[in-house]
């Protein structure tokens, strides 16, 4: 799939290639491979030696990077418009001709393990990992995107190369090009470079599922900390599900801005937290609706949890006011527009939705948001924000002397 969009107001071009493979596709004992593979795609191909992709980017005054998540792996380049096609040459080459030199593989394994440790050292990293692992028992969303340390250590170069051969094909990829381009010329260059690459096998269907949760799960993570943290996660529907739109409104009304319910309750009235947030990210499979709070040292986490529950109950008992509903819709729509000032973000949005659903999702997004009623929001609050459907995690001090 190739998506292009001409934007001529600045002489720059963003190109991103998306592979529909992420931690969601990893099997038992093989976690972290998608992300590790992303690292290896900078370590040398039959045409670009190790470091050369970065060197070309440097010399051409561009930027490149890559990111891996549960459902995808993506690689991007931003270049000035007079030289951007070098990005196409690189992506076409490394889609099929990446090398996995043993010494590069071993050195990069150390780098990935350091990245994993950064995550564990970050205040929210360890708790987030524990909550996802508890919320999903069968589905690979159970596993951290970066993988489990033991799986990383055991992984071999040969397995990595096989994984690459399995998932990196035109048939499993979306190429997005946005910016100061001529569409016709661009498509013909894409055809020239990617046309000769075999389409690849039909991507393996994962056959993964998660049984409905049958009761609340609770967990505690202990770390050296002076500040306790709370993370509550409810199972919630996947991208483009009819209920996903009212849930987005719900997330915004709960937590975005100083007029939101949780800000007013926790930060202003109770003054019990330093901050709170709600996250509901679109994914291929049913995902989590997550509420987080960082608790002040003088306050009790159980008390904060109770206050959040009261606010959630209030949403179940009575609908949002017309003003709250309108404000949430306006916030979602305006931030969508304002977020696209960076050309790269336009390319990211297109590729992201094409990879997890369809780029056409975007053409009806505003209509769907506009169509949500206060009753819809109340209904989804009752349906999904239920005690039996959630995992509650606390991060607490491991009791050592305060440093």
């Amino acid at each position, binding site marked *: 799939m190739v998506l292009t969009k001409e934007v001529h107001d600045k002489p*720059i071009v963003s190109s991103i290639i998306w592979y529909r493979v992420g931690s969601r596709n990893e099997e038992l004992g093989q976690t972290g491979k998608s992300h590790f593979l992303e690292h290896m795609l900078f370590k040398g191909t039959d045409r670009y030696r190790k470091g050369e992709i970065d060197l070309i980017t440097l010399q051409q*005054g561009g930027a490149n990077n890559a990111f891996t998540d549960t459902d995808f792996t993506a690689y991007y380049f931003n270049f000035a418009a007079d030289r951007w096609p070098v990005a196409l040459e690189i992506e076409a080459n490394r889609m099929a001709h990446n090398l996995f030199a043993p010494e590069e593989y071993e050195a990069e394994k150390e780098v990935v393990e350091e990245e994993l*440790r950064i995550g564990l050292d970050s205040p929210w990293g360890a708790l987030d990992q524990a909550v996802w692992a508890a919320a999903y028992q069968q589905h690979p969303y159970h596993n951290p995107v970066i993988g489990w340390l033991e799986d990383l250590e055991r992984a071999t170069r040969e397995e990595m190369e096989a994984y690459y051969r399995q998932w990196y094909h035109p048939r499993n990829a979306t190429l997005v090009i946005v910016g100061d381009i001529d569409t016709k010329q661009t498509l013909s260059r894409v055809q020239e470079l990617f046309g000769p690459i075999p389409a690849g096998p039909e991507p393996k269907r994962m056959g993964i599922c998660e049984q409905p949760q049958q009761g609340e799960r609770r967990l505690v993570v202990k770390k050296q*900390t002076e500040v306790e943290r709370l993370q509550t996660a409810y199972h919630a529907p996947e991208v483009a599900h009819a209920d996903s739109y009212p849930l987005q409104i719900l997330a915004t009304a709960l937590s975005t801005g100083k007029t939101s319910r949780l800000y007013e309750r926790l930060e202003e009235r109770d003054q019990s937290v330093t901050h709170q947030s709600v996250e509901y990210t679109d994914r291929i499979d049913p995902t989590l609706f997550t509420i987080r709070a960082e608790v002040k040292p003088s306050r009790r986490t159980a008390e904060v949890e109770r206050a959040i529950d009261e606010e959630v109950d209030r949403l179940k008992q009575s609908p949002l006011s017309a003003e709250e509903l309108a404000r949430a819709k306006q916030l979602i729509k305006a931030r969508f527009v304002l977020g696209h000032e960076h050309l790269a973000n336009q390319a990211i949005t297109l590729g992201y939705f094409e990879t997890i659903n369809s780029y056409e999702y975007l053409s009806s997004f505003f209509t769907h948001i506009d169509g949500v009623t206060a009753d819809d929001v109340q209904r989804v609050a009752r349906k999904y924000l239920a005690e039996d459907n959630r995992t509650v995690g606390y991060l607490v001090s491991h009791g050592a002397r305060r440093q």
Partner: protein
Amino acid sequence: MSTGIAPRLNAERVELSNGLTVLLSENHALPAVSISAVVKTGERFVTDEMAGLGSLAGELLDDGTETRTSQQIAAAIESTGGALATTGSYATTKVSATLLSSDLDLGLELTADLLRHPSFPEDRVALEVSKRRAEIHAKQDDPRHVASEAFNEIVFAGTPQRRPVIGYEGTVAKITRADLLAYHRQFFAPNNTVLAMAGDFSAAEVEHKVRQGFGDWGRDEDLRLPEVTRPERQREPITRFITKDKEQVNIFLGHLGITRGNPDYYAIRVLDTILGDSPGFTSRIPRVLRDEQGLAYTTYCHTARSAGIDPGRFVAYIGTSPENQARAIEGLRRQIELMTAAEPAVAEVESAKAYLTGSFVFEFETNEQIAAFLVQAEVHQLGFDYLERFPKEVNRIAAQDVLRVAREYLDPHNLTLVVVGPVDETGRILKQAEPT
């Protein structure tokens, strides 16, 4: 080697009779606008006893004015879907807003009100102080932050820059509404403020609106800005180890840096790009320590990034497993030494220059970036011709210039070293990483 597509910018500068500098740049790519109003005050004008006052004042600007409550301000801006933020940092205090262009009038009206008439209500002050005190504790959980703050404490010794911008728990706890009002009276004046706007508007119309909103803000004829103590570069090595129960050691190595006005700024940008601040892992430190040796996920080094009104810091960073500590520190030292020992290869210099000039266009992509540039141009007197001048300045730099500035601005023998992680106060490792 290509020199890059030059960014274009139509900018207009007006100074109102009360001294307010107004910078406007039309950009019709999207129906959106960014406002950035910057008062040239911050923690640098605050005494040690009041540490945190400047940042707290900045944060509280949208917490109530003489005619609007915090809730009214929030409701007004959030109902448009726009975003407004107020912050106080080391050298500047800022009201910034990003809005759909149809809401520009509201944005300007709020910006004027927040800058001119903040009331710092008692209850909001208490709320923010309490939150700030908790945040000071929460930040202790971030080892990189702890290391960075400890590094500043040493490198900027004797100056306000050594302090955390958010202050200390002891100082923040004592800040009152009266302190905030006094601080506002002393430093917030049109003749100490720059208002920059970029986006989908007509500059002529906006200029008229700005005159309406800010024209009657009285010039402060008595504005006196305090002298700020200049830090001195250390003359001996200083080392500090801080114990934290973590997986990694976070290492900072460096010393005092340069001001933005330093004539060697452009040579130092080239030096940074060669040594430790480039895209991917092309510069020496990430290439050797990450890409070749696998010591870290994150490692970098730079000087120009923190250059401001006051000198910033020359700083190298690496986060690594405890058992790699000695190798990592040695590796950073070695790269700094090599930089001062010999001229870089011509190819390195040319690549760095191509990068700096070629990527310059990406600094002007959004309205927010353009507004931020306009403010920088004013504060550091870069001039709007900076867009043409920057590539020329960079292209003038040769390998011998890079060696000269490396020798002048990097001193491998007198470095501050801070390590935070599972080590004792002598640097001995307290915990081994799991066997691999």
